[in-house]
C-alpha cells in the first residue's frame, strides 16, 4: 500500500495553552518543539526536517506568526528538507508532507508545528478585530483572494461560510440544531476531563439554546474559541525506531484529495465540503474500515464540520450525521466512536488542526488519563480542515 507506511509519529509536544496569555508565538513554538523532541527521545541535532502550516503570515493577526525560518534559526537546526505554506491539504497537510519526506528518505526526523496566538492578538477588542485580515472597515482597504467576494456582503468569517454549508445540510436532510448541539456538548463533556482545555465547566442543552446566535444555525457554542498555543509532532522514518524512546504511532493511511472546485461557495456539494474527497482517498489506501476505528479526532472549527467529517469518513451515511449524533451516546467517551476526546477546539481551544493529531497520539499511547478511551484504542483517525481544505491521517499503534 502507500508510502506513508514509511512514516511514524515518534514524538508529541504542546506548549501552555490559554486565552490572552501574551507570550510571544516563537516562545510558545519553542516550548512545544522542545517538548516533542524530548518526548521522542531525540535531540535538536537529530532534527533534519521542518514542516508547518501556514508558514509565517502577519495577517490575520494571531493566525500564525512563526514560520520555518523563525524556528530553524531559533533552534539552530541543520535541515535536509523543509516545507511551510498555506496552500496545503488543510492544516495537517504539513504533517502529511513530512510523512512523504521521511518515506522518500529526504529527512529522518521532521519537526512539524502549528502555532496560534489569536486570543492575545484580539486582546479585548473582540473576534471581529482579527477576522478581516486586519483591514476590514479601514478606509481605502481593498480585499483580495476569496475575501473580495464576501467582504462586500458583510461575510468576512468562516462562521458565515460554514453556516451556509450547515443550512444546506439542514435543508436537504432535516438536520436540526438540537442534533448539532451534541458536537458542542460532547466536546465540553470531554474538556471537563482535560486539564489543559480552556472551557471545562459543564454545558447543558439549555445553555446551548440560550446562547447568542453568531450566524444561523450557529450559536456561540458552535464556534471554536480563539486560543494561544503551539503543538508540535515529530514525524520519523519508520526504520528509525532504534533512535526512539518508545514505540511510535504508525501512519496507516493519509487522505489529501480534492476533486471539486477549490472554493467555499462554488464547491459542488456544500454538505460534504472537501472532506469527502480526502476521506475517500484515506480509505482507498488501507484495508482497515471505519468499523476498525477506536477513536476519532475531527476538526470542529465549527460544529457542523465535525458532523461532515463523521459522514465523510463513513461512520454513518451521507446525510445521516444528525440522527447519528442525536443524544450524543454514539460519540461519547464510551460510545461507538469516541469523538474529540480532549474537548476539540470548541472547548479545548483553537489550536487549528494539530490538536486533533496530538490527541489521537495521546489516546493511542494510552496517556489520556481521566479521558482515556477504554479498551486502549488501536486505530485512530485525525481529520482537519473544512470548506475547501481537508487532510486526514489514519493512525495505529502496534
Amino acid at each position, binding site marked *: 500500500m502507500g508510502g506513508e507506511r514509511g512514516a511514524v509519529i515518534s514524538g508529541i509536544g504542546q506548549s501552555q495553552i490559554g486565552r490572552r496569555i501574551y507570550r510571544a508565538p516563537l516562545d510558545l513554538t519553542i516550548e512545544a518543539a522542545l517538548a516533542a523532541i524530548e518526548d521522542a527521545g531525540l535531540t535538536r541535532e537529530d532534527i533534519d526536517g521542518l514542516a508547518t502550516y501556514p508558514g509565517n503570515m502577519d495577517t490575520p493577526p494571531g493566525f500564525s506568526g512563526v514560520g520555518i525560518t523563525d524556528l530553524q534559526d531559533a533552534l539552530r537546526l541543520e535541515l535536509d528538507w523543509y516545507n511551510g505554506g498555506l496552500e496545503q491539504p488543510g492544516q495537517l497537510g504539513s504533517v502529511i508532507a513530512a510523512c512523504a519526506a521521511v518515506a522518500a528518505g529526504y529527512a529522518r526526523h521532521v519537526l512539524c508545528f502549528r502555532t496560534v496566538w489569536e486570543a492575545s492578538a484580539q486582546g479585548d477588542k473582540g473576534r471581529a478585530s482579527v477576522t478581516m485580515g486586519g483591514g476590514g472597515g479601514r478606509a481605502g482597504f481593498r480585499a483580495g483572494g476569496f475575501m473580495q467576494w464576501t467582504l462586500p456582503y*458583510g461575510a468576512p468569517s468562516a462562521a458565515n461560510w460554514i453556516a451556509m454549508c450547515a*443550512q444546506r445540510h439542514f435543508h436537504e436532510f432535516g438536520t436540526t440544531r438540537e442534533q448539532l448541539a451534541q458536537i458542542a456538548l460532547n466536546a465540553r463533556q470531554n474538556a471537563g476531563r482535560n486539564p489543559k482545555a480552556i472551557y471545562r465547566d459543564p454545558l447543558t442543552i439549555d445553555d446551548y439554546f440560550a446562547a447568542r446566535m*453568531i450566524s444561523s444555525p450557529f450559536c456561540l457554542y458552535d464556534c471554536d474559541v480563539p486560543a494561544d498555543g503551539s503543538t508540535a509532532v515529530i514525524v520519523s522514518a519508520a526504520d528509525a525506531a532504534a533512535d526512539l524512546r518508545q514505540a511510535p504511532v504508525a501512519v496507516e493511511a493519509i487522505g489529501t484529495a480534492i476533486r471539486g472546485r477549490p472554493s467555499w*461557495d462554488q464547491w459542488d456539494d456544500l454538505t460534504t465540503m472537501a472532506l469527502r474527497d480526502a476521506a475517500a482517498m484515506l480509505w482507498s489506501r488501507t484495508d482497515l474500515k471505519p468499523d476498525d476505528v477506536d477513536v476519532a479526532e475531527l476538526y470542529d472549527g465549527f460544529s457542523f464540520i465535525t458532523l461532515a467529517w463523521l459522514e465523510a469518513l463513513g461512520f454513518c451515511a451521507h446525510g445521516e450525521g444528525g440522527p447519528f449524533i442525536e443524544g450524543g451516546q454514539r460519540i461519547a467517551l464510551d460510545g461507538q466512536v469516541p469523538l474529540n476526546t480532549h474537548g476539540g477546539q470548541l472547548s479545548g481551544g483553537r489550536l487549528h488542526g494539530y490538536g486533533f493529531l496530538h490527541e489521537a497520539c495521546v489516546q493511542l499511547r494510552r496517556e489520556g488519563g481521566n479521558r482515556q478511551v477504554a479498551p486502549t484504542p488501536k486505530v485512530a483517525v485525525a481529520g482537519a480542515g473544512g470548506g475547501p481544505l481537508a487532510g486526514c491521517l489514519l493512525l495505529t499503534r502496534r
Partner: protein
Amino acid sequence: MAPAVVSGRGTLHSFTINHQPWMPGFDPPYVIGIVTIAEQDDVRLTTNIVNCEPDAVRVGMPVRVTFEHREDVWIPLFEPVAD
C-alpha cells in the same frame, strides 16, 4: 473566457442570518446567501438577500438581482420574487 449577459434571476442555494457585528456599515441581523444563477447551476454568488424579513428567507426561493452603488462599484444583491 468572456463576460456573458444573464437574466439576473436565480435560486437561493443556502443562506445564514448573521448576528455578529463584524464590520462597520453592516448592522445585524442581515442575511448572507449563496445564489445559483438561472443560466448555469454551478455558478454561484455569495451575496445578501434584501428587501425581505430575515425570518422569511428559505433555501430554494427564487430571487432576482438588485444593484447597490457603493463608491466605484455596483454590488449585486438579491431580493425574493414570486414563483
